[in-house]
């Protein structure tokens, strides 16, 4: 027996670890728990590294644009290369500043519409797996971020804080399969639960067959859960399907937020906050 265990120790230990992992998964199955000391320690190591990489990535973008412009200019006119490159670099820098300005102005306008203060945060990393949709933000419990808080941006609802460490927090996006949010169709007030799919879309569950829903209808948060403010734009109905049977109908929602370009977000500390609708709804 001992000889067998020794000979196959790698497989035996791997199997044991698999059982431990299964136990951990089952313990966290229903809902995520608070971070333990070890989890916090892990994030304490990883988050500064992610911030560093993010900073390092931001630097070459300007250089890259300038270089491309420089090559192009060299082909066109060698004599004017230096001057044009400088000007193009300046234009690139100004365009980048202009874009950042527009984005930040939109965020500022959104923040002003909110009655209570919001916690501004930046996305510093994405889910390592292709199967799940979560992002890491650079604000944590030190800044007042807590598990369950809503996360929004100028375009609408983004997700919910899943776990928070001291300096960072994990946000589960609305399009993740584990995400669910109480919503309603703005036009008819029909209520449903929005759940994520494996694609960058979401679907409405428990939408009654008799409810009036049409393609193009705006879907907003219902505010019934208490953690998410009422009236936040979630997306637009892109497909409605009524099968020949059943008490519910199927509807697909295209989110208002472009999750692939998520950079800045706001955490809503109080789900009962009032945020005016209108421009946020695209």
């Amino acid at each position, binding site marked *: 027996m001992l000889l067998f265990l020794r000979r196959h120790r790698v497989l035996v230990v791997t199997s044991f670890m698999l059982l431990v992992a299964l136990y951990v998964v089952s313990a966290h199955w229903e809902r995520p728990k608070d971070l333990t000391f070890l989890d916090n320690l892990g994030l304490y190591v990883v988050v500064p590294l992610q911030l560093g990489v993010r900073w390092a990535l931001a630097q070459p973008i300007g250089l890259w644009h300038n270089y491309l412009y420089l090559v192009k200019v060299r082909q066109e006119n060698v004599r004017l290369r230096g001057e044009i490159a400088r000007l193009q670099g300046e234009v690139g820098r100004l365009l980048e500043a202009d874009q950042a300005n527009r984005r930040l102005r939109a965020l500022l306008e959104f923040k002003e519409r909110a009655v209570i203060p919001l916690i501004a945060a930046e996305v510093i990393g994405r889910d390592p*797996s*292709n199967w799940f949709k979560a992002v890491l933000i650079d604000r944590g419990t030190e800044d007042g971020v807590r598990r369950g808080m809503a996360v929004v941006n100028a375009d609408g609802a983004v997700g919910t804080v899943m776990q928070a460490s001291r300096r960072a927090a994990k946000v589960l996006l609305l399009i993740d399969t*584990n995400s669910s949010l109480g919503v309603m169709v703005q036009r008819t007030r029909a209520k449903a639960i929005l759940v994520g799919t494996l694609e960058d879309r979401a679907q409405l569950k428990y939408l009654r067959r008799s409810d009036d829903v049409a393609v193009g209808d705006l879907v907003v948060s219902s505010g019934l859960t208490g953690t998410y403010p009422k009236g936040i734009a979630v997306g637009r109905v892109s497909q409605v399907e009524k099968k020949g049977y059943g008490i519910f109908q199927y509807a697909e929602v295209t989110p208002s937020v472009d999750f692939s370009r998520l950079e800045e977000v706001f955490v809503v500390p109080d789900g009962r906050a009032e945020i005016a609708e209108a421009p946020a709804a695209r």
Partner: protein
Amino acid sequence: MRRFVIFLGAGLALLILQTTLLAAPSGGWWRPDLVLVMVGYLGLYWGSLRGVLLTFLLGYAMDLLSGSMFGLHIFTRLVDFGAAYLIGQRFYRYSAVYDLKLCMVLALLDGVVTALFIQAAGAGTPAVEVAALLLIPQVLLAGIFCPPVFVLLQRAERVLRRPVPA
């Protein structure tokens, strides 16, 4: 011990690349799973208790950054490690094509196990859609990134084996 710590650092570096730089070009969601490739390497070339521990830690780090049920990545990475170890024990061939095929098989296995967990959690997306959307890109990306990551790790091993000058 030095080898273990350096490989742990390398694994974390790959993980951070995966969540930042490599997440950008595809708009965020389709990125190569470099940690999976590294776990394949560990199963194939380490095949020791340190390899199991390192795999566990890398899975744990992935769980910390992921929106999945906590522990899922520990589980899937250990399954990948075990599979790579068993395949390596029985059918080992030292060639880049073999490594590439192994990574693709591991990516497929990893995807199937993850899909089963997602289904069990109640997300009902059709299997064909899952395969087209996630599984096939994941397998292909694992195959593409396998040779360079293996070469990099093998070089690191060679450097680490050199005697340290007194």
